[in-house]
């Protein structure tokens, strides 16, 4: 055990954790909107919209996240049209490519979580709202969404943790996140176990915090 290496690498890894957290929060933020949009589309009676949303979630849940990042980072740069458009400003940065891939990926999973949450809402709640003369828009925002959020909290908590682990793939497109820096230290010092313990503990600590935060929210919004 090389304790000195563990102590020395800790601040470097902690710095890299900031990158990981930025990637995580931005992709979750965009992913939530994508997920909500596709969940609503999945519940649509229009067959084309419905099938499109289903295809989207099937595609993103059936392929590895690594393929998705590589298509966006290496693949899209190949298209002339994208390279000449304003999109290139974003798509030439590995940082934004990673966030786009993560957001689309977590969006697919989130849409499934939200869809099943919406579907488990008892019809009676909506009917009660209707019979009280509340407009269907307000029923959606004030009755369906709050119940769906509470229903989907445990599953969404798991998704956040999966996404936290997913951000490690950013290191494959040259980003120096926690895993990227850990790999760099391992390959320069050849002390994999020490670095794994430090980096792994940081990840576990974050998982622990997220897990408890979700538990706290679950208790708070219990009804």
């Amino acid at each position, binding site marked *: 055990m090389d304790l000195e290496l563990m102590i020395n690498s800790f601040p470097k890894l902690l710095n890299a954790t900031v990158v990981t957290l930025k990637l995580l929060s931005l992709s979750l933020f965009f992913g939530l909107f994508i997920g909500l949009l596709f969940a609503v589309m999945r519940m649509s009676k229009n067959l084309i919209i419905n099938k499109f949303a289903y295809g989207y979630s*099937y*595609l993103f849940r*059936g*392929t*590895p*996240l*690594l*393929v*998705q990042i*590589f*298509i966006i980072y*290496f*693949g*899209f*740069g*190949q*298209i002339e049209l994208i390279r000449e458009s304003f999109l290139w400003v974003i798509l030439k940065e590995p940082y934004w490519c990673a966030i786009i891939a993560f957001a689309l990926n977590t969006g697919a999973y989130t849409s499934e979580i939200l869809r099943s949450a919406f579907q488990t809402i008892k019809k009676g709640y909506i009917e009660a709202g209707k019979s009280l003369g509340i407009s269907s828009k307000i029923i959606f925002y004030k009755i369906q969404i709050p119940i769906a959020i509470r229903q989907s909290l445990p599953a969404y908590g798991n998704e956040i*943790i999966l996404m*936290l*682990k*997913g*951000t*490690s*793939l950013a*290191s*494959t497109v040259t980003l120096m996140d926690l*895993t990227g820096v*850990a*790999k760099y230290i*391992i*390959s320069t010092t*050849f002390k*994999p*176990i020490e670095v*794994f313990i430090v*980096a*792994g503990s940081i*990840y*576990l600590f974050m*998982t*622990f915090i997220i897990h408890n935060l979700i538990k706290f929210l679950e208790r708070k919004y219990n009804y």
Partner: protein
Amino acid sequence: MELLAFGKTGWGDELFYATLMTIAVSITAMLIGFLFALIFTPLKLSKYKSLNLIGNFYTTVIRGVPELLVIYLFFFGGSGAIMFVASMFGYYEYIEINAFITGSFAIGIISGAYSTEVFRGAIQSIDKGQFEAAKVLGIKKYIQFYKIILPQMLRLAIPNLSNVWQITLKDTSLISVTGLVEIMRQSYIAAGSTRDPLFFYSFAAVLYLLLTFLSMKLINKLEIKYSRGF
């Protein structure tokens, strides 16, 4: 389409063998995972607190740390660990382990953590009366497990195991970082030499979709088989 031709002109045969490699790694990893589950599920269900702790440590750490980090640990640390053990037996030469073994082992340990959770959940949801009835009838412990608990457990576990299989299959794409030529690595090589990454990575995505689709069909059949009589 010429890019996918078989033989020397295209990448068809290379990608075909790479797909077989992905399937081989996934199955090996899944089986290694079952071995780990076989060890850790009893630990998690044990009466003894210290054994529980070991079981919980395994599943919490593996499920809380990114797969890529675990793979790097095995990739960089694997041959070191083997050489350390070998040195205790007086063997000091450099040993290199094959990428297939390192990869399947790394993914297997990850897959095992998920399988352990599935088996634990399945056993816990079997009615206590089943165990008691078997005991009262004087059925031996291992027959009780194989003939009474296991068939009921499998019925409950198969839907969740199919999720574990999907996760394992997708995780194998990460071993490409160690140089094992599976779908992802082969696409990387092909994309590099033809300068057509969009086509090859999209094709890789199609191959993965095909694999998940076909395996789902197969698992559904198993599910029907094991839920007969219910």
